[in-house]
């Protein structure tokens, strides 16, 4: 089998929590050797939170960590010790990419800022992705994924008609910041491959989230207006929403994109007379009478399961899909048939279902080769094979409690 695209590329991953590890997960998906630097003295928050199998906690049992660190290795180092910093530097000298999502300035304080690392490895690519970026008057402010949804402007734009601002996702700012950082890293890697030049990338998670709502920025720029919250509705399509279906809190989403689909919807619902109903005769009319329209659609959807409604609508080419909850997702027959799920044997949680890679490549297949690492699982191997330490040197470091 062909090698994956980033085979032979090594990433020193100082990231923690959620944004950074999600970004480095993509590099692991592409085949890079991603080595997470961790410490039992300052555990990654994602090792400390539920869910755990059988609700029994454990640093290697957390679903959160095990999902977003698949395919990576774990090296435990106490970065407060000077010897640990020396090891990190040696590792960087044999690597291609350094990632971190610490608050601005932390890497410099640890003695592994870009100015130091570029002297060790002149073509290193380093990315920092703190919430606010590493410059500007608020660079030292603290941030998490959930507040970024508010701070980006997304909350003020999201909500029911006439209702207050609402959230999007749990912590949507995190994966978004991580993936935009990975895009910049991949661009820098291609540049380095062609020119031999490395570089430093300063990514702001706040700015990465604003990239997701250009319609609102442009509206303000053009007209000085703030778009109003409109629930699940759309200015250019109606009906367009999530409708109650049979069952407890079960829902189906659908969008009618044009007049032909509107005609077909009436037929599918067994109400062909709707197509000549003046209240709904055009997009403008349907927008005008949208509440009445939504009642008519709900009367039809709530008599069926979300799957039945979806199948009936898809049969005539109308976009529809059940509003999946998490159990629906992990049992989804379509992605199951596509081999999207990853189920690798993990020493502490056994075989669990994890989300996989959303792309396939025809010539250089990407695959998750190993489950998320147990804490420090690869310390010995990394120090021996890459850093080049002897068994007695490793034992001495262990005795000084530097490798935990």
């Amino acid at each position, binding site marked *: 089998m*062909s090698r994956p695209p980033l085979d032979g590329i090594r990433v020193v991953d100082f990231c923690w929590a959620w944004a950074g590890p999600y970004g480095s997960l993509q590099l692991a998906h*592409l085949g890079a050797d991603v080595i997470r630097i961790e410490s039992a003295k300052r555990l990654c928050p994602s090792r400390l939170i539920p869910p755990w*199998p059988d609700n029994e906690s454990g640093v290697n049992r957390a679903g959160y960590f*095990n*999902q977003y660190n698949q395919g990576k290795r774990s090296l435990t180092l106490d970065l407060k010790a000077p010897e640990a910093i020396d090891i990190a530097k040696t590792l960087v000298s044999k690597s291609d990419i350094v990632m971190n999502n610490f608050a601005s300035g932390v890497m410099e304080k640890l003695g592994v800022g870009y100015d130091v690392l570029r002297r060790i490895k002149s073509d290193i690519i380093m990315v920092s992705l703190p919430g606010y*970026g590493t410059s*500007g008057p608020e660079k030292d402010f603290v941030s998490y994924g959930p507040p970024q*949804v*508010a*701070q980006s*402007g*997304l909350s003020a734009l*999201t909500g029911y008609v006439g209702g207050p*601002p609402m959230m999007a*996702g749990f912590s*949507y700012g995190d*994966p*978004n910041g991580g993936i*935009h950082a*990975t895009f910049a890293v*991949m*661009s820098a890697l*291609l*540049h380095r*491959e062609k020119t031999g030049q*490395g570089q*430093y990338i300063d990514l702001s*998670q706040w*700015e990465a989230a*604003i990239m997701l709502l*250009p319609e609102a*920025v442009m509206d*303000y*720029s053009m007209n000085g207006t703030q778009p109003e919250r409109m629930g*699940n509705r759309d200015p*250019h399509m109606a009906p367009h929403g*999530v*409708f109650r279906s049979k069952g407890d*809190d079960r*829902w189906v989403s659908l*969008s009618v994109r044009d007049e032909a689909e509107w005609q077909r919807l009436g037929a599918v619902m067994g109400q062909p007379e709707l197509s000549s109903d003046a209240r709904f005769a055009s997009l403008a009319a349907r927008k005008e009478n949208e509440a009445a329209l939504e009642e008519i659609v709900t009367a039809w959807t709530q008599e069926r399961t979300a799957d039945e409604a979806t199948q009936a609508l898809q049969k005539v*080419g*109308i*976009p*529809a*899909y059940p*509003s999946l*909850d*998490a159990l629906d*997702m*992990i049992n989804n027959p*379509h*992605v199951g048939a596509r081999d999207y799920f990853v189920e690798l044997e993990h020493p502490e949680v056994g075989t*669990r*279902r994890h*989300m996989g*890679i959303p*792309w396939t490549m*025809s010539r*250089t297949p990407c695959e998750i080769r190993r489950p998320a690492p147990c804490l420090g699982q690869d310390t010995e191997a990394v120090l021996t094979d890459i850093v080049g330490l002897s068994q007695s040197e490793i034992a001495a470091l262990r005795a000084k409690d530097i490798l935990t």
Partner: protein
Amino acid sequence: MPGALSGFRIIECGEMVSAAYASKLMADMGAEVIKIESPHGGDAARQRGPFPGGEPHTEKSGLYLFLNTNKRGITLDLEQPQGQEVFQRLVKDADLLIHNVQPGHMPPLGLDYDRLAAMNPRLVMTSITPFGLRGPHAEYEASDLTLWNAGGLCFLNGGGPGTDHLPPLKAFGQQSGFTAGVHAAVASLGALFARLRGGLGQHVEFSVQECLMGISEFGTMMAAYAGVAVTRLGHKPIQPLDLLECKDGWIFICCVEEHHWHSFVDLMDNPEWAAEPIFEDRLKRGESWDALKLLIQDWVKDFTVQDLYLKAQARRIPFAPVSTMGYLLNSEHLNARGFFVQLDHPEAGSLTYPGAPHICSETPWELRRPAPCLGQHNTEVYTELGMTAQDLAALQRAGTV
């Protein structure tokens, strides 16, 4: 100064967001992108707006203007055999072809990897489709809304006390498209990197549904590890993590860790109620949120958003303003970083755009040109392909371009 992706030639057949955002990110990094649009009205994003004064205009849609910076635009009817011949000539010299055409519509448009690769073995072709190219739902039609539901993200939001009867709530805008676009760009660059080393291109198949499932956070893990579906109804398990109303707008109050809560209590001047056992830890505060929210809301209401935000941040509590567009565009921080940029467009005029979320030390990001008008670069691009003015006129008469 050349960009990180200078020298890469990309052909985009994109409608709306996903493929267009992927190639915009690459164009802004220096890649040479040629966007192909149908001669019959072009990309649907041209009809989406927002528009100056709310007046629809093909060249003034805010969504289109943002998504297509730094690209050249041509018109070409891929449904005509002649159009496909021209298309093949374009693809022959391309590094990447990226599209978001539905699987069922790909063959009639000539989007056939094997045929294109036979002419250009170095070609990377990225197919972004709602549900991938195979599997029982591959042919399903989709919208941004139905994909947000198919990826399990819609189900996470909406509801909560007082609104539990309302449906799962989508996020503003075209989130499925943007999230898919940036992920597909990463995958495409991966394939281009493999080609720099191995010489050959390949077909990258990308599923939007799978991409969204992959960011659905706690949800899938709770299901796989604890066998439960996280509900959007009722209270959130951890509090305070909520939106509250200040004197002049909304603020997000966030106490994830216990030390955040202690600092916040201190900021509130240690009210007696904060010592009640029902507010003892973040889980108890979640259970008691009805009562606690009223107490905090009563304290918050006398502050301006900015005042409370700065006071909290001074104590390293991660509060954030619920930003309006006016707040963002006037943010000293964002402007000091040069995030927003002013760009002139021949029809839409001078407007403020979101720039790039990253600052690269050696390959600065830049906006070299605004989004193309429909068919703006036909003469330029077709001449580069070796066509004469007569050839082009013939194609125009046939409605091919």
